[in-house]
């Protein structure tokens, strides 16, 4: 059955970053199988100014703008990403069109959100038992700052939001759900079990509740994979030394609330023991953690979930690599992961490098691609300048951040190689050279672009689509030659 949707709930900062990684994989040509052709990312984060969330939102919008121009039958940018508003054709006026899920009460202090001062003495006493004075005074503008007990109260209200209602309205038989969260923080740890509980609850007042409650649901939960450096002065607001104890407590809760009840069809967990320190940033625009290899592994979990959706039986999976090390390249990954990633990532990276380092050669070329297929004014179009080029910058930044992180995933050499060595970029896969032919030069790409443009295969396509399809064919061929 085709035209199935995968709803992905990304909870908290980790959720945003995994959705970003998934967007990069979809852009590079990783495809979902089993008839899933649309991804609906829904980011749940009370910290609406969170740097990670806003960056992910911008990346998703750029991806959409590119997809809308190039159409569906592409490898690069070939999977549709939709907002809830787009699924409703804009019929729900107060529904945001930016992938973000509004969390009611998140802009207040916790005490205000539960009307602490308005409670009678008995209820106040109960609240005082469950929450510290600091909790009650906590400003939730920047999320729950590692306090899942606060988050569990606030996030329980998400089922009343317009976004949740629209999610249930748009859900069809065959659609599936995937939830991304971290277990060691605040928002993700509290949001995941609550969301799952609400999804599995059959409620006659909720549209399609009978379908949703029986749908296939997968989830990934991140065990600690980074630490937070203490702030420069004052008290620590997020204390990473508590990450493991919080993770253990949450896992224990998951055991009886989720695993024993078999409410999940697939559960993935990921973690790492590297000494990876993130700068302390309690939230808002300061929270921009560098991309990490594990976030890409999480995105692969989404792909694996869809691949194995017909064979799930409350499966629990871990992610592993072939050879452990501090600096990973494609060769260190397991065979399945390597096969899944090496071609698409290498293609998009080569495209980014080529357009950055070889553009002058392309624009000066007297060949068919530059003069017949794609004219020079294409490169000053909105599609190229505002969306495509910017998206590739994000992609490059994402790769660089993964390369600089601990553990490092750095399968490509520095992107500053000039046109004459542009094909020497995959670590461990140098281009073949002979006395008369230098396959390292970017000219080989221009030649192939001209060859395809000369055949006129895509002559009836619009420029953005033609541009992408021709490049896709060339990159596929060239990268396959390198990876042989």
């Amino acid at each position, binding site marked *: 059955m085709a035209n199935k949707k995968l709803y992905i709930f990304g909870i908290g900062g980790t959720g945003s970053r995994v959705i970003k990684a998934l967007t990069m994989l979809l852009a590079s040509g990783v495809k979902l199988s089993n008839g899933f052709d649309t991804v609906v990312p829904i980011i749940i984060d009370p910290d609406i100014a969170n740097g990670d969330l806003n960056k992910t939102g911008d990346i998703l919008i750029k991806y959409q703008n590119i997809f809308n121009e190039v159409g569906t039958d592409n490898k690069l940018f070939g999977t549709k990403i939709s907002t809830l508003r787009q699924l409703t054709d804009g019929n729900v006026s107060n529904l945001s069109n930016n992938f973000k899920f509004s969390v009611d009460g998140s802009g207040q202090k916790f005490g205000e959100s539960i009307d602490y001062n308005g409670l009678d003495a008995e209820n106040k006493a109960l609240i005082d038992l469950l929450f510290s004075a600091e909790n009650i005074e906590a400003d939730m503008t920047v999320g729950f700052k590692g306090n899942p007990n606060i988050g569990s109260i606030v996030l329980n209200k998400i089922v009343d939001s317009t976004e949740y209602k629209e999610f249930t309205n748009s859900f069809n038989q065959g659609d599936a759900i995937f939830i991304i969260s971290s277990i060691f923080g605040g928002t993700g740890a509290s949001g995941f079990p609550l969301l799952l509980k609400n999804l599995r609850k059959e409620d006659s007042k909720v549209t399609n509740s009978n379908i949703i409650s029986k749908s296939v649901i997968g989830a990934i939960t991140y065990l600690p994979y980074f630490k937070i450096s203490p702030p420069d002065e004052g008290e620590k607001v997020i204390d990473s030394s508590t990450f493991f104890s919080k993770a253990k407590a949450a896992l224990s809760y998951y055991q009886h609330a989720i695993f024993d009840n078999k409410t999940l069809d697939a559960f993935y967990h990921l973690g790492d023991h590297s000494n990876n320190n993130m700068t302390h940033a309690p939230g808002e625009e300061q929270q921009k953690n560098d991309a990490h290899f594990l976030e890409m592994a999480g995105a692969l979990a989404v792909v694996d979930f869809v691949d194995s959706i017909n064979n799930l039986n409350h499966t629990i999976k871990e992610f592993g690599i072939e050879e452990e090390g501090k600096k990973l390249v494609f060769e260190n990954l397991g065979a399945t992961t390597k096969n899944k990633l090496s071609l698409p990532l290498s293609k998009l990276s080569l495209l980014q490098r080529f357009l950055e380092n070889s553009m002058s050669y392309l624009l000066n*070329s*007297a060949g068919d691609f530059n*003069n017949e297929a794609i004219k020079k004014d294409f490169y000053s179009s909105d599609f190229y300048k505002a969306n495509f080029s910017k998206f590739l910058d994000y992609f490059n930044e994402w790769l660089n951040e993964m390369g600089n992180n601990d553990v490092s995933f750095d399968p490509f050499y520095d992107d500053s190689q000039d046109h004459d060595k542009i094909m020497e970029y995959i670590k461990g896969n140098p281009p073949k050279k002979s006395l008369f032919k230098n396959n390292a030069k970017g000219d080989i790409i221009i030649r192939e672009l001209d*060859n395809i443009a000369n055949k006129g295969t895509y002559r009836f396509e619009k420029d953005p689509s033609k541009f992408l399809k021709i490049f896709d064919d060339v990159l596929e061929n060239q990268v396959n030659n390198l990876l042989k």
Partner: protein
Amino acid sequence: MSVNDLLAPAYEYFFNWDNYETLLSCAYDNNDYGKFGWLLLLTPMLLLILFYKVWEPMRRQRLMWLIILIIISIIGYAATTGILYNNECILDELGSYTGNQVNPEYFIFQMSMITVLYSFIMSIIYTLIIKRFSKHNSHNPF
């Protein structure tokens, strides 16, 4: 009409018949214009086919095209000079040159330069045709 007859006026046009009659007749009688014709027809065609279909340079494409045209011109110049220096009639004129009549060596130079001019024109015409069959130089030089 032979190639010799066809091309003779194209060369003779540049000369004063009264002064150059002997030398021009030598070239005509020896069928040299026919040889120039085949030279102008084949050399640019062969080299431009090699340029646009075999070599297909990717760097400094206009400069490379210009270099090909210069090579075609040099071949034209050298071949014309060679052909005329192998013309016995002109050699006789060279031997009997006293300084009072037209200098046969200067005549050979002039004829060679005319071939260069026609080679250039032929190259432009061929370029317009052959570049259409090129993939990487289809807009070289324009």
